[in-house]
């Protein structure tokens, strides 16, 4: 399997053309995406033009950058200039953003080739990619199952071998959980490390864009390109992108690893067993491993389902039929607003808008939104205490392996539980990564999650590389088996 560094190197050296790399990706998509349905839109013409320009640049003696010719899939909540961006929602059907998200501009600047836009739960609200207005994405290894979500399209595109790199967004686990279910690497950076400019907001204080890749190294290469201060995002951290790749092989000798009980207990036994196995592997590699309890984790889901819907209810107000996207006529402006939003939003989005509107209402703010924010503060303090004793924490990414299509769609609480292990990092703003580590009893991938304090990405990736190196042989490559 070729890593993206080697792939880019061969394109930069002129040994391989960006066009041929793109053709490989396009033919893989043509072969299998009719059944996986990872992509909502493949921008073949734009991609080909970009690849040709890259090859011309190489021939002219210039260096297109660290991702030269590497095909990338973008979750369809990232704005792409002139290319449809729908958030998987009817309400944005036909909208072509007039601008590129900062991450998209940085990808292009690094020589990456945007292949298309991937499926997602509508406005990133979901854990299975079934809440998409255009239908679900299927798990590449078992088409009767979900790929996870909400970045299920990007995760499936990488897992199916269509593209080596994908971008997703992670508000409550939407990069890490589908990565775990699909058997790829998925990472949520420290809040503020990656610019949100051009990421269509779900819950602004929780959203982060994160990489999906076949390997920890590829994810690190991608994060190095997209991270770093952006003056268009006020919450962007004012420091340069971290250097991750150079220290991936430094090992974990002496690293203090805390196995977080709340991130293991309650997960399926085969998942819990894989976490134990990963912990043992790290210990064997020289890490100091011990158990730790962070009881506040149990409040995460409740706090999250107040904060995220509250912010979403405000963020999604702008889809009112006035300026872009869907408009359903009404006898006056208010009636038009209502008709448009009634027709344009799916049931999960409506559920969360109503929940959030309620949580912010006069007289309820303190009891709901205000209290959830205090819980969030408690959670931050609890993790800070844990990090006094440990350098990183270890746990499961998702409670189970990929579940069946339709299994949880009528049971929102069961669906929400899919994110119970990933939500804490969004509430604290800390980074976390999911690394494939063997399979469950059903033969489907299991992800092990590594969590680190804010801005400790370098350590996080180093530990992730060690977990990856110890992963049971055969299982991981079977997940990404279609890769050329």
């Amino acid at each position: 399997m070729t890593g993206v560094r080697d792939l880019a190197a061969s394109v930069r050296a002129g040994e391989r053309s960006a066009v041929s790399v793109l053709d490989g990706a396009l033919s893989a998509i043509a072969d299998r995406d009719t059944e996986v349905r990872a992509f909502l839109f493949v921008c073949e013409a734009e991609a080909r033009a970009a690849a040709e320009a890259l090859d011309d640049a190489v021939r002219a003696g210039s260096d297109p950058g660290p991702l030269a010719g590497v095909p990338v899939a973008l979750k369809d909540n990232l704005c792409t200039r002139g290319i449809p961006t729908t958030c998987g929602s009817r309400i944005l059907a036909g909208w072509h953003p007039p601008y590129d998200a900062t991450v998209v501009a940085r990808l292009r600047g690094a020589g990456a080739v945007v292949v298309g836009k991937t499926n997602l739960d509508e406005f990133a609200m979901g854990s299975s990619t079934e809440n998409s207005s255009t239908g679900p994405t299927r798990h590449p290894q078992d088409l009767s199952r979900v790929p996870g979500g909400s970045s299920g399209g990007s995760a499936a595109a990488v897992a199916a071998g269509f593209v080596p790199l994908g971008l997703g967004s992670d508000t409550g686990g939407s990069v890490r959980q589908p990565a775990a279910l699909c058997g790829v690497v998925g990472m949520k950076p420290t809040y503020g490390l990656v610019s949100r400019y051009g990421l269509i907001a779900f819950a602004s204080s929780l959203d982060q864009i994160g990489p999906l890749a076949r390997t920890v190294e590829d994810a690190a290469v991608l994060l190095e390109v997209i991270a770093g201060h952006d003056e268009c995002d006020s919450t962007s951290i004012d420091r340069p992108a971290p250097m991750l790749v150079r220290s991936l092989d430094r090992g974990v000798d002496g690293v203090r690893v805390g196995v977080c009980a709340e991130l293991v207990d309650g997960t399926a036994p085969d998942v819990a067993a894989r976490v134990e196995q990963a912990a043992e592997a790290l210990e064997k590699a020289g890490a100091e491993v011990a158990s730790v309890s962070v009881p506040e984790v149990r409040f995460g889901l409740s706090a999250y389902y107040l904060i995220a819907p509250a912010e979403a209810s405000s963020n999604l107000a702008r889809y009112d039929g006035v300026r872009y996207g869907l408009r359903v006529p009404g006898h006056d402006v208010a009636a038009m607003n209502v008709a448009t939003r009634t027709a344009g939003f799916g049931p999960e989005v409506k559920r969360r808008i109503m929940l959030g509107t309620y949580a912010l209402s006069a007289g309820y703010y303190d009891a709901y939104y205000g209290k959830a924010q205090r819980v969030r503060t408690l959670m931050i303090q609890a993790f800070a205490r844990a990090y006094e004793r440990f350098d990183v924490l270890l746990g499961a990414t998702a409670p189970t392996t990929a579940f069946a299509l339709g299994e949880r769609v009528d049971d929102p609480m069961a669906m929400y539980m899919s994110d119970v292990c990933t939500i804490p990092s969004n509430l604290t703003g800390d980074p976390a990564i999911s690394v494939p580590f063997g399979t469950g009893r059903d033969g489907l991938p299991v992800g092990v999650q590594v969590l680190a304090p804010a801005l400790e990405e370098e350590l996080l990736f180093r530990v992730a590389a060690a977990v990856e190196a110890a992963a049971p042989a055969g299982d991981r490559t079977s997940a990404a088996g279609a890769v050329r």
Partner: protein
Amino acid sequence: MTDWDTVVGLEVHCELRTRTKLFCGCRNAFGDEPNTNICPVCLGLPGSLPVLNEQAVELAMRIGTALHAEIRPSIFHRKNYFYPDMPKDYQISQYDEPINVGGWLDLPDASRVGIVRAHIEEDTGKTTHQGASGRIHSAEYALVDYNRAGVPLVEIVSAPDIRSASQARAYVTELRGVLVATGASDGRMEEGSLRVDANVSVRRAGDEHYGTRCEIKNLNSLRSLVRAIEYEADRQVALVETGGRVVQETRHWDEGAGRTVPLRSKEEAFDYRYFPEPDLVPLDPDAEWQQRAAGAIGLLPAARRARLVELVTSGEHGAPTSQQQDQVEAVVNQGLDDLVVDAVDAGAPAALALVRAANELAADLEHATVLDPSAFARLVVMETTGAVTATQAKAILAELLSAGGGDPAEVARARGFEALADDSLVAVVAETVEANRAEWDRYLAGDDKLAGFFTGQIMKATRGKADGKRVAEELRRLRNGEPEA
């Protein structure tokens, strides 16, 4: 019949004169082609994010400092409600932790109005309802101009310390002067740079409790403000005196009909669902920045008035006359006081410069604000020395104003204006007296009205070149039989 007190609190929205909008790099300009100063951020396009404009913060701090407010660490909130000219369907505004808290504004009549807060927020777009009548209810469609969306505002909220429509007018006038002095505003109410909402209630004289208030919107001029407050206070008094009860509501001032009409009741009021804006970070200007902002404030209206009063009264006069006091206020409010000060510096007497500014310059404000101060100064000096008469000076000033400047001496020459030399004037007066003996005798006998007759005759004879003041002096001298000066 009981006496009633009117209680008024004002919310003044001031558009800040920044180069760019509050959260993006679009030009902040009035009157441009609609929807030309727009971008993903001020259009609220999906994925866009706000970045706070430092110049807006600086101007807000200047306003706070000028109003004696405390500058505090602050945050932004989202005020959520649906409106077609509000791109995000929420307004980013400061809420319970604003940048400026407390303060006061002293008015020229020495009354003091408390300031509750002065916070930063973004403006909305501007909707124009299109249809036969131009009114909302019968409009066929609406056009929205988003050039105004995201323009920075500071909302200045007064305490309910105002007790009359005329005091409200004085407050807004004084506040406008302060805002212009800070460089925060151009003060143009007619362009919407300053917009006022009035909270009006009434109570029986001596009552300590406030009555139920109504908020009056759409007050686009000082005239509207005064009329609306008077109307609303009368309406509320009439209502209560006939056994009715004032209900808390928002009312719209209908300028054409001259009355306020209900817009929405308290029950229909929006639940704005305020919560902290997660896309922005807390604002905490350091002491150095605060000092820099304070240091950039220009001369405030009160200081400008004091400066003029001192000029006018320096010399033998003592206190200014009440007419002069009015002139000082008017000249400062109209931004003409610098012209007066410059003229005095150039040797013109303050009182005359003040009169010319309060009358002739104020009558042509558009030109006066761009008039070359030295031309004005030289003209006032010419009038003082008697080189031209008052009538001639006014004519020259009109020409200078329309030309934006010029040399008053040259204008005088071109028009053949020269005050009559004094010996010729004496001769003309003597001739006129001779030619009208009968009238002169009556004048000597005490018929003072005939002074006007003689002045008119003399002016006619000199074709207006005679200085009215000198004519009066000469007539008086002849009547009293005094020797020639």
